[in-house]
């Protein structure tokens, strides 16, 4: 059986890494199971790994690149002794103590757990929603993209479209104007949900057009995307748009499939925490960041709730006389 850790943090966005900094400084020798590389927001470092400039994180007067900010968070946690495992958690069992966690590509869910912990901090965040229309899977990487910063380069002088009306969609559209000859924002409402400063930049940009009250219903092209069918949500009228690139930014869903039937969650999948704390329905399991927040969803609020989860976990361990392990005894081969 693996050694029992004081605290295991699942997820490594602003919430998880802030929890790692605080629990490491409390000598709790946290293990962060940070996830596996992917080209969606479901990856180590979280959603900010796919963004460009972050302008609203306090302390950075001229802004900072998302991946750089997350690299700093991680290095700061590592400096105080947090350990990292680049794997995905595939199963949890919170029924008996210590809590059991299975991670890794080939974890045997019927066998011994790969990790044991006295307390767990859940910070698995949220991942991008896809359109859910035919052809979508086949066309990812062939004109359909979930990562403007990765793929914008390939659409130099192309006409492309972005679906969505929030900050991510507008930020992607503005970024893509560096490459594309024209970017059309397709949004199902008649106004943007993005912050005022982003809206203004998009509305006055001469490369950005809008298709209001519209949704994408069909993708065309084989093997590469060469057009989409757009439907007016009021009239039902359909028309074809010739675009070679389509970037999807229509919102997120919380990464809580792992915790179904185990942790209390809303119908929408967001974890429920006790108001004013990060406690879940299971004592010793705490949740922070976007996985439990459908209201604010900012890097700074995620980081703030990560700090709360760390303090909640530390106090809970103390109250339950679960002594912090000596950092020197922590195995380093994890």
């Amino acid at each position, binding site marked *: 059986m693996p050694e029992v850790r004081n605290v295991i943090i699942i997820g490594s966005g602003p919430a998880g890494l802030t929890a790692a900094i605080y629990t490491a400084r409390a000598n709790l020798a946290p293990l962060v199971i940070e996830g596996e*590389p992917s080209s969606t927001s479901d990856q180590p470092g979280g959603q900010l790994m796919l963004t460009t400039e972050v302008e609203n994180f306090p302390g950075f007067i001229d802004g900072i690149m998302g991946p750089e900010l997350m690299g700093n968070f991680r290095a700061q946690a590592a400096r105080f002794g947090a350990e990292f495992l680049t794997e995905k958690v595939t199963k949890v069992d919170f029924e008996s103590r210590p809590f059991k966690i299975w991670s890794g*590509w080939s974890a045997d869910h019927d066998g011994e757990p790969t990790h044991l912990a006295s307390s767990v901090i859940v910070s698995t965040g949220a991942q991008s929603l896809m359109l859910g229309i035919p052809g979508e899977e086949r066309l990812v990487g062939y004109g359909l993209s979930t990562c403007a910063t990765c793929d914008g*380069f390939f659409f130099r002088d192309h006409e492309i479209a972005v679906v969505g009306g929030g900050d991510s969609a507008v930020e992607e559209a503005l970024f893509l104007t560096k490459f594309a000859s024209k970017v059309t924002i397709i949004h199902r409402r008649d106004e943007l949900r993005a912050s005022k400063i982003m809206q203004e930049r998009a509305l006055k940009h001469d490369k950005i057009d809008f298709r209001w009250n519209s949704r994408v219903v069909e993708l065309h092209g084989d093997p590469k995307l060469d057009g989409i069918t757009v439907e007016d949500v009021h009239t039902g009228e359909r028309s074809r748009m010739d675009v070679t690139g389509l970037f999807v930014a229509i919102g997120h869903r919380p990464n809580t499939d792992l915790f179904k039937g185990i942790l209390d969650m809303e119908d929408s999948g967001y974890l429920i925490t006790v108001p004013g704390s990060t406690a879940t329905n299971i004592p010793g399991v705490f949740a922070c960041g976007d996985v439990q927040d459908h209201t604010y969803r900012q890097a700074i609020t995620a980081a703030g709730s990560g700090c709360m989860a760390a303090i909640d976990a530390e106090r809970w361990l103390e109250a339950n006389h679960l002594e912090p392990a000596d950092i020197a005894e922590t195995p380093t081969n994890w």
Partner: protein
Amino acid sequence: MGEHTTTLTDASFDETINSASEPVIVDFWAEWCGPCKMIAPILDEIATEQAGKLTVAKLNIDDNPEAARRFDVMSIPTLIVFQDGQPKKKLIGAKGKGQLLEELSEFL
């Protein structure tokens, strides 16, 4: 970059791919691509562990746009496995080590 990982350019591309006796995984990447950086250490590990069975070759698409165009790379990271000079498999997007090894198993 790991000692078992080689660097490709547009100029060296054909010769390297055609003269290799084992499969060559070409990693199309760029400095500005976060997921590319995330898989770089994994590819270094695979290159070291599978030395002799396959070669991992990195191609910076900013400096070498021609190869990316020739093989229709429209998203990075993209890995293309070449065998006997021919592209045999294309893997798009960042993946964890376990999943990558499984997708590469036919070449190992």
